[in-house]
């Protein structure tokens, strides 16, 4: 009897799950989610299809014909874009350039924000609230306002030290880090305030110093927030055009967005480059998103206190 029950249980659970999925409210939710997915997927799939078709077909037959005539699929466009290899100004060179900007900018913002938030929440110095309010104030400063002052600042720094960050990769990275930090600190600080202070005190008694507390207690607990921050920051920097355009001025290496932008400007008949380059620029953030997604665990703090 008990054995029979144990065997049938999963089946029962399955039917129940199915039933709950079919309940009106769930049904509506699933329809909405389905629509959202379709809206998101159609343009992406079309871009992918265009990038995989011969450029001569553009404007002659629709991209959706790839479903009925898959033989027209070809990697020709990619081969052509990649054929220049790492030559300056080519697509692979822009991928590398963008990565050289995005990865440091993301890592720096995530690390510095986490450390700053640790100090703001668990530190024991005066004026923590004031500093935090200042950070909140910086959240609303528009990027455009800072372009000229920062360029001048770089110039002045160049006069002083002989290294002018304007037009260099470090210059772009520094700008992105500076603009990513207020939001990063805001996000991490708000997350850390939810970590019970008792946990850190328990750690102190167990023998941990500040650095160990940060690494072994706070950082693992803050991982979901750090992961979201890293994703936001990565996508924001990866897709940035304005900052790159201004601060890479004069540099032979371009970001992907600048690379794509230059094609929209010069050659009217370059849809295939845009489609192919667009797919290349979408792929990386997607990989990042799915790689970090597993850190979005709910209820990391369960069982800590009480």
């Amino acid at each position: 009897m008990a054995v029979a029950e144990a065997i049938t249980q999963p089946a029962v659970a399955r039917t129940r799950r199915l039933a709950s999925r079919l309940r009106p409210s769930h049904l509506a939710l699933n329809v909405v989610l389905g629509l959202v997915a379709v809206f998101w997927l159609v343009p992406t799939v079309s871009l992918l299809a265009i990038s995989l078709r011969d450029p001569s077909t553009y404007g002659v037959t629709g991209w959706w014909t790839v479903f009925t005539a898959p033989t027209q699929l070809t990697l020709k466009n990619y081969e052509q874009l990649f054929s220049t290899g790492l030559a300056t100004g080519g697509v692979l060179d822009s991928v590398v350039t963008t990565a050289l900007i995005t990865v440091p900018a993301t890592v720096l913002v995530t690390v510095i924000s986490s450390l700053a938030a640790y100090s703001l929440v668990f530190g024991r110095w005066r004026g923590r609230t004031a500093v935090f309010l200042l950070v909140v104030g910086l959240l609303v400063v528009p990027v455009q306002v800072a372009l000229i002052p920062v360029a001048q600042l770089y110039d002045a720094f160049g006069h002083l030290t002989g290294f002018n960050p304007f037009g260099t990769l470090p210059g772009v990275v520094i700008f992105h880090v500076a603009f990513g930090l207020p939001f990063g600190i805001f996000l991490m600080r708000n997350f850390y305030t939810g970590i019970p202070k008792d946990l850190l005190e328990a750690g102190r008694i167990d023998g941990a110093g500040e650095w160990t507390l940060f690494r072994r207690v706070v950082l693992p607990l803050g991982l979901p927030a750090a992961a979201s921050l890293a994703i936001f920051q990565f996508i924001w920097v990866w897709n940035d055009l304005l900052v790159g355009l201004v601060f890479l001025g004069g540099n032979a290496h371009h970001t992907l967005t600048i690379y794509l932008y230059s094609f929209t400007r010069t050659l009217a008949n370059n849809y295939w480059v845009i489609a192919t380059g667009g797919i290349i620029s979408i792929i990386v953030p997607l990989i990042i998103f799915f790689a970090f997604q597993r850190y979005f665990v709910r209820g990391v703090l369960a069982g800590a206190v009480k």
Partner: protein
Amino acid sequence: MARVALEDLTKRYAGGNLAVDRLNLDIADGEFVCLVGPSGCGKTTALRMIAGLEDISSGRVRIGGKVVNLLPPRDRDIALVFQSYALYPHMSVYDNMAFGLQLRKTPKAQIEKAVREAARILDLERFLDRKPGQLSGGQRQRVALGRAIVREPAAFLMDEPLSNLDAKLRVQTRAEIARLHQRLEATMIYVTHDQVEAMTMADRIAVINEGVLQQVGTPKDLYEQPANRFVAGFIGSPAMNFVEAEVTQDGGGSRLLAEGLEVVLADAQAARLRDRGLRSVTVGVRPEHLHPGALEGPGLRLSASIDVVEFLGNDELIHAASGGRDVVAIVDADVRLAVGDRVVLSAAPRHVYLFDPDRDMSLTVR
């Protein structure tokens, strides 16, 4: 294991709030001392100063003879069991217990041995791989205890470790902690606002009120010879009854009178009152010392009418009105008292406590 001494320990919070006021307490090696007092009296603050989590405003904490005022928590060789457990939610039960030893660079094999031993004592062996979130309240509590005992600290500090448990589990864990204390022969400082916990577990109890130490002694001392009205009212359950009474002299003897109350004093006590020139005193008598029926000679007599009778099994808890006051008594269930009955309750002279009504100090010295 070590002796812990508090010398004039004082904490004044920013804003001027005096949370602990010149606390002096000498805790012997291996002793189990309870700090008790009502909510907000400064128990946690005192404990946190011993642990090093709170700055000391003035005074000294000595652990094993050494002043530790300026040492960070990790160098004080103490373990603290938090009221909230404070388990690391992202670590397994095993790692929660092992963390302190890992940080102290204890060899792996030794850590494993210590953790397994603690898990065995606390009956946690089956849960070592679980996260705290997958445990019941009682199991979490035991993990918190385990984290403390694997370290073999000089002293254990516990801040109301049982307050989040239900009544049954509380009694069970109370026994577990008492057993643990006997087994480890460790110095333990245990904070609670529950005097029953203190009475059942402690070698000595320190009663604190509004940051000031009221009395230190064995549970028996505090119960039989409370130093003042606060301790008398705090220790013992249900709480002691108090009645303000006038001192009257007639003929050879002294009597204390209030509405519905008469206390005939023994000669020694009468003399002491006369020496102090007191016109009125506070009379205290414990519920368990009040018995129905009149009593000849010295002692206390109280006439009252019964409001509520609570059946406790062997005994009955009686709420009675006497001269506009609520008086509580515990009487044998065989006595069969009913609501509305008028009774005389009496107590023997040795069970009558007298307090100075102005300073609340005990006038009863035995």
